[in-house]
């Protein structure tokens, strides 16, 4: 972690701080966000609600799933109505062509199918995955610990407040166990 005296922010994706545990990370996030940083992300080995809250993380996934479910419902019922009543009307024992009660199982399955597909693919799309390469993987400590027991905080260089020395100082003052460069 010996940095060159005159540091060039070109080629730097950001700075990463490592914390001992989730509580430390939450404190770190609070400090960094109080200082006005916006382009901040945190990395935890498992979902940590306190970290998400401190980060102010929001998600629109429930709305995506709802939209998928409604689309499935409309497509499922519409398909059956159109094919049974309009495209291929078939009189079965005098039953009405739009025998909607019989259409419920398929409508339900289509609702679940499209809602489920939008849950999974919506999550991937919102997370920008698949993305096999990302600058954070350039930090050796991160790849070693991130998916086991490491708690990391990232401040991106594109943040308007980002200043290499100042940000680094702030991070090390926030209870971090180590601060690392994240090369692009």
């Amino acid at each position, binding site marked *: 972690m010996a940095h060159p005296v005159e540091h060039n922010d070109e080629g730097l994706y950001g700075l990463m701080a490592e914390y001992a*545990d989730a509580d430390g990370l939450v404190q770190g996030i609070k400090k960094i966000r109080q200082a006005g940083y916006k382009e901040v992300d945190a990395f935890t080995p498992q979902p940590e609600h306190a970290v998400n809250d401190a980060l102010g993380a929001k998600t629109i*996934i429930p709305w995506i799933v709802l939209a998928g479910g409604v689309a499935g419902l409309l497509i499922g019922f519409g398909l059956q109505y159109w094919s049974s009543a309009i495209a291929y009307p078939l009189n079965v024992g005098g*039953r009405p062509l739009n025998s909607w009660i019989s259409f419920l199982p398929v409508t339900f399955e289509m609702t679940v199918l499209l809602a489920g597909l939008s849950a*999974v693919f919506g999550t991937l799309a919102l997370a920008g*995955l698949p993305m096999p390469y990302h600058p954070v*993987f350039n930090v050796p400590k991160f790849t070693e610990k991130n998916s*086991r027991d490491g708690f990391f905080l990232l401040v991106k260089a594109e943040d308007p407040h980002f200043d290499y020395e100042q940000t680094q100082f702030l991070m090390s003052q926030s209870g971090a166990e180590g601060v690392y460069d994240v090369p692009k």
Partner: protein
Amino acid sequence: MLSSPQHEATQPKTAGQVPVLAPGHNMRSITDKISDIVLKPKGGIGWVIGFAITFALTMQLLFSIGWLLLRGIGVWGNNQPASWAFDIINFVWWIGIGHAGTLISAILLLLRQQWRTSINRMAEAITLFAVANAGLYPLLHTGRPWLDYWLFPYPNTMGLWPQFRSPLVWDVFAISTYLTISLLFWYMGLLPDLATLRDRATGKIKRMAYGIFSLGWRNSARHWKTYEQAYFLLAALSTPLVISVHTIVSFDFAVSVIPGWHTTVFPPYFVAGALYAGFAMVLMVAIPVRKIFNIEDFITMRHIRNMSIIMLVSGLVVAYGYLTEGFAAWYSANPFEIDTVLLLRFVTGPYRVLAWLLIACNVVIPQLLWSSRVRSNTVLIWLISGVISVGMWLERFVIIVMSLTNDFLPSSWAMYAPTVTDIAMYTGTIGFFLFLLLLFIRFVPMISAFEMRELLHKVSHSGDHHSSSNDSQHGGEVVPVPGD
């Protein structure tokens, strides 16, 4: 910080209650132990022998399918009047086995049952492989499986559309949705663990393979936020789905007019039977696996006991279903129903031995699970689970074959017997199921490591808010100690 109900859930309530996670683990030890099963496999010879046997059975399955495609479905034993037999028995049997996976992963997640965590991945895998086997049967039973795309609604030059008023078409949608959603749910749960394997793998090929399948997951808190909600929503969607699937499967029978099938008790009774068979299969897999891979810390006796209790309860519901079925037949005062469901089935019919065997397997023997001594004996539980699996298979035989072979006209009565191809295919699907299971255990973490870390974190924070869960020095204090 946790709310008190969850706190209580992880604490031993009575003496003898075992925790959901053995004491002395920290985040690193959990992760390493789970991923080492995949990354540093031990005792390869047993796995190789198992692989060889199940591979041979898989080949047997493929051979019997090839023979079927070559000669047509006349190679199966089913013929009028038993137009449905082994194919549908095994279809329903396999679908039922799949249901415990969804129950464990989805319903227990919604109910915040923390003990589900170490068994959900394996149960979901069982679901997937069971449904894959189940799907084979109706697809092959169409007789010309290369035209199976006709089952789906698509604009075609014949100007035809599927008959959406038929339960058989509902089945197509239910099973394909179930398979898709189960696969997605399983893969979504795997994603963070594949990332762990990617980070921990040493070989280049392994790193690349896990890297590709982990899609570049990097445990970002912003991603977790979306991920958790999506996972929860998937669970909420899977819960009614799993119930709808077996309900629709039961409609295949209940909507018809065959005596013994035409009854409204079928949907709930089939769903309960599915859970019963499914838990039996999960126990049959989990009991040897926890021993062989030395993961009794994670799949504790608490899990085995809880699953035994659920199995006992669903078994009682199934037994109640049998009673209701008999009562409804008697109360209908319909001679055909009474003959099929009561007289021919149990007293005078040619297959009555199987019906009594079914009662023994599904109703009598599982009552042993009332005893807590039995529930602490994994060998006995394993044997009882095996008996239940046989019993559930017999149940489908009794419902399907016995109703078809003895219908309205005695002149059309005939016996049914499976052929060699039938039996080869059935044993082949069991081999294929175990084959997939062996591959799963070898290449994918069979316990969800990230959810175990989360569980550890919850358990450790339930007592002391300030205790640090990831610090290895504090590793010993993080989990409640067993009561006895």
